């Protein structure tokens, strides 16, 4: 049987997109993946503070929102430098960008997979460390909510740093230098929200501003990541 012309397969890239997200989440939790290391870092780094500033509960309570947010932010940065580099080094990034998913699909899938596999667990874990840091009970819920609203911006802006340094050996430190200044607004509004909740002030305006920064990051982050990735693939 001879088919005279290859039927045009309608390549649904949506199916491919979610397959890519699932694969990356799976790889993040697989042996050698970023998630377990990042959570380990988060636990250890936060528990260093009582050694540093002393165990007095009021001191810890006072600095708890700031410490939890800063360490979550740092954990996010260190897990990001392999976002594209792993696939760049073994060649699968070439296949992904040539596939119907395309550059935009790859960036969105990777950022989403990173957020699900790394920053989400941080947000869920934060309250337990809040207990250790003697965080005031009123702050727990807002801590999770602020992390959930703020961390997308961390993944998105971090993705830009990762894409810019994908071809740079040992680009991790450089990536932090590039990305951390851009994290300042998210950090300020995130900690502001938790502080407000702890002081029984309405945290809503802070959360709104935090959400605004994340929305902004969606636009700037994805555009810049696609541009940077195209550049690196040349």
């Amino acid at each position, binding site marked *: 049987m001879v088919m005279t012309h290859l039927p045009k397969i309608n390549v649904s890239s949506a199916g*491919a997109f979610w397959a890519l997200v699932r694969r990356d989440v799976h790889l993040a939790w697989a042996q050698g993946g970023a998630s377990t290391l990042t959570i380990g870092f988060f636990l250890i780094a936060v528990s260093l503070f009582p050694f540093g500033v002393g165990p007095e509960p009021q001191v810890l309570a006072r600095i708890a929102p700031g410490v939890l947010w800063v360490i979550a932010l740092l954990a996010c940065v260190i897990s990001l430098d392999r976002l594209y580099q792993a696939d760049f080094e073994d060649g699968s990034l070439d296949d992904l960008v040539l596939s119907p998913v395309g550059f935009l699909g790859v960036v969105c899938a990777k950022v989403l997979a990173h957020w699900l596999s790394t920053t989400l667990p941080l947000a869920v874990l934060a309250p337990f460390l809040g207990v250790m840091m003697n965080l005031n009970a009123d702050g727990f819920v807002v801590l999770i909510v602020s992390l959930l609203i703020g961390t997308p911006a961390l993944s998105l802006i971090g993705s830009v740093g990762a894409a810019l340094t994908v071809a740079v050996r040992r680009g991790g430190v450089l990536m932090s230098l590039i990305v951390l200044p851009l994290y300042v607004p998210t950090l300020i509004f995130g900690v502001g929200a938790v502080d407000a909740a702890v002081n029984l002030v309405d945290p809503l305006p802070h959360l709104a501003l935090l959400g605004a920064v994340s929305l902004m990051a969606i636009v700037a982050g994805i555009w810049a990541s696609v541009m940077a990735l195209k550049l690196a693939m040349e």
Partner: protein
Amino acid sequence: MNKAVLRYSDDTQIMAEALTCRRGGRTVFANMSFTLSAGSYLCLRGRNGAGKSTLLRLIAGLVPQSDGKFVVQAGGQALDIKSSLLMVGHLNGLKPALTLRDNAAMFQKVMTGQNLDQAVLQAAAKRFALAHLLDQPVQYFSSGQRHRSALMRFELVSRQIWLMDEPTVGLDSDNRQALAVMMQSHLERGGIIISATHDPIDVEGIELNLDDFAPKQIGQNSLESEWL
């Protein structure tokens, strides 16, 4: 199960006219022209650094051309190159933590959005003597096995244009034979193959030596770069 004999459209054509590519302030190759129609095989020759890989990536649309015309067309109108080509490079694009079966299934899903037909995978694996390794994580594979796993993609996803960068690296003689057979049958079905390789594959095709398109030697003054 006699595999349906797919035949690619015969009026697909890859046409390059006075193609020039400059990268990092240096001209890699200049005013190169060639035309490839369905069923033909182009073998790129030339010393290292002559731009073989660059040309392959240019054809794939990853590298922008600096000058000249480069068109992939079918029956007069331009074809979206990305949806009709498959490329294999030096790196094999396999995730070490996943098994060969998962890697292949992932590749199929990303490239076509459909799930992998296990029979097709079995046939492809048998062709490159990898059938017994399908459920092993790729991290335990030798470099030759990894390279053969990468070559399997041409059996899994049917695309008209194949771009191969050093396909024979790490292949022993009977795998090299399997590669030649696969390429030959692809050509007979109207496929187009462009490969950059040093040691020849016994598939007859047109040769293109990139050294002929290198920027004129330093002696003459045409070292065109915008910086000099």
